[in-house]
């Protein structure tokens, strides 16, 4: 498992895309942090950007890489290696590489300019978000048979999480506005890894008052230790469940 991961990491390090991603992240973070004297505002801006770019790059890159090394997977399956080890090795390899890009690209500027609990929270949730979108990429890759469909499905997932989901929540709020929705909203939030990450960071910033009554409710739930554990756990579930499903499919797949 770790051997496979090792060779994948060695292969990815040579790819220019990942280096470009690291540079892009650090340029964005540096320019935002240097342009604004207020670190908190800078972190909010970074959060907004990170919540769009990180899932998109993670899911598209992981899917593309999965299909580009399809022949390598075939080769491995004919060797005395279990399919679980092959898929897990791929996940560890790709995950480590993209995660390293994120940690270097965002972590470096944040540690330099905005080293705080909030900055740390941004790093932790961003890392979990990266891993959950790689996990989703694996699911999309094993469900489909060809590259175009796989990438299409990945983009759909990203589109759902970053745009469509908000629309659904608004529609839900609007149509059931006569009922108390606070608890339901918390459950709804758990259905989207991006929202989970965003809320965790924003609540650290103490600007939830701007979000009105719901914000206050979020603050009392997600801001508490209990709520934080809940949302971190939910993020972990978003990593484990898609990967587990992908593994189940991969074990029964014809190559």
């Amino acid at each position, binding site marked *: 498992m770790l*051997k*496979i991961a090792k*060779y994948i990491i060695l*292969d990815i390090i*040579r790819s220019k895309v990942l280096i470009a991603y690291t540079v892009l992240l650090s340029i964005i973070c540096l320019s935002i942090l240097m342009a604004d004297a207020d670190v908190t505002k800078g972190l909010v801006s970074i959060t907004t950007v990170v919540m769009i770019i990180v899932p998109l790059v993670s899911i598209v890159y992981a899917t593309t890489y999965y299909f580009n*090394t399809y*022949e*390598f997977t*075939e*080769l*491995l*399956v*004919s*060797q*005395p*290696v*279990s*399919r679980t080890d092959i898929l897990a090795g791929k996940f560890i390899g790709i995950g480590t590489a993209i995660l390293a890009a994120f940690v270097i690209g965002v972590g470096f500027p944040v540690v330099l300019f905005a080293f705080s609990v909030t900055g740390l929270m941004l790093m932790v949730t961003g890392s979990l978000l990266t891993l959950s979108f790689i996990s989703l990429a694996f699911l999309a890759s094993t469900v489909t048979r060809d590259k175009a469909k796989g990438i299409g499905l990945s983009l759909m997932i990203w589109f759902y999480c970053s745009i469509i989901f908000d629309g659904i929540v608004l529609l839900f709020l609007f149509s059931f506005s006569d009922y108390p929705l606070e608890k339901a909203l918390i459950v709804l939030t758990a259905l989207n890894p991006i929202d989970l990450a965003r809320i965790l960071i924003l609540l650290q910033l103490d600007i939830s008052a701007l979000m009105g009554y719901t914000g206050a409710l979020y603050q009392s739930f997600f801001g508490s230790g209990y709520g934080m554990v809940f949302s971190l756990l939910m993020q972990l579930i978003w990593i484990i469940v898609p990967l587990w499903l992908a593994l189940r499919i991969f*074990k*029964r*797949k*014809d*190559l």
Partner: protein
Amino acid sequence: MALIEISNLEKSFGKLAVLKRISCSFEQGCIVSILGPNASGKTTLIKSILGMVIPDSGEILFRGQPVINTFAYKKHIGYMPQTGCYPDNIKIGQLFNMMQDIRRPYPDLDTGLIKLFGLEAMYQKRMGVLSGGTRQKVSAALAFMFNPDVLILDEPTAGLDPVAAEQLKEKIREEKSRGKLILVTSHIMSEVDEIADTVLYLFEGQIKFYKPLSVLKAETGEEKLGKALTKILK
């Protein structure tokens, strides 16, 4: 006891039944040639033995042990695919090292083919820039490298130059004399005639016949396999 035993193997892709209740067994020290028209299920049969395709029903036994959904038995198998596809960025030398790393622990390495094909001089070349023939050489070298008991060769000489093809055939015969089982698919009849001692003919997912070459020739009264085949299939 047969080395590989297949019983009632069935596989379909969607509505298309590719293998229809196939049963056969392969002994040690044999070169079995798997023949059949295109889409007769040759590659699916091979891939089932390798665990790359998971059969719908039936059983595959390796030394009496059922092997579907297991992987440990693959250390006794060397596989040379029809078209060897490898990661583009990797160099030949790295590929060999990687496979050795992944298959560790392994018995003595057999580097005969690497020397024969002169691959050592190309260790620094990337897989992506290699010609089809060189890739075939790399695949062949990989298949024989770990001294496996079973060699599965899918169209081994297609794309190889005449000298390399001859060298590979010689190697196949040599491994046979050391008691190994070799499964070969090929469309070149003269080649099958030369190396195989048993022919397994697949047609539309079923075994049409599975006979020693000599019996086949005696039954039809033909000297050449190609002619014998056309006579039987008429």
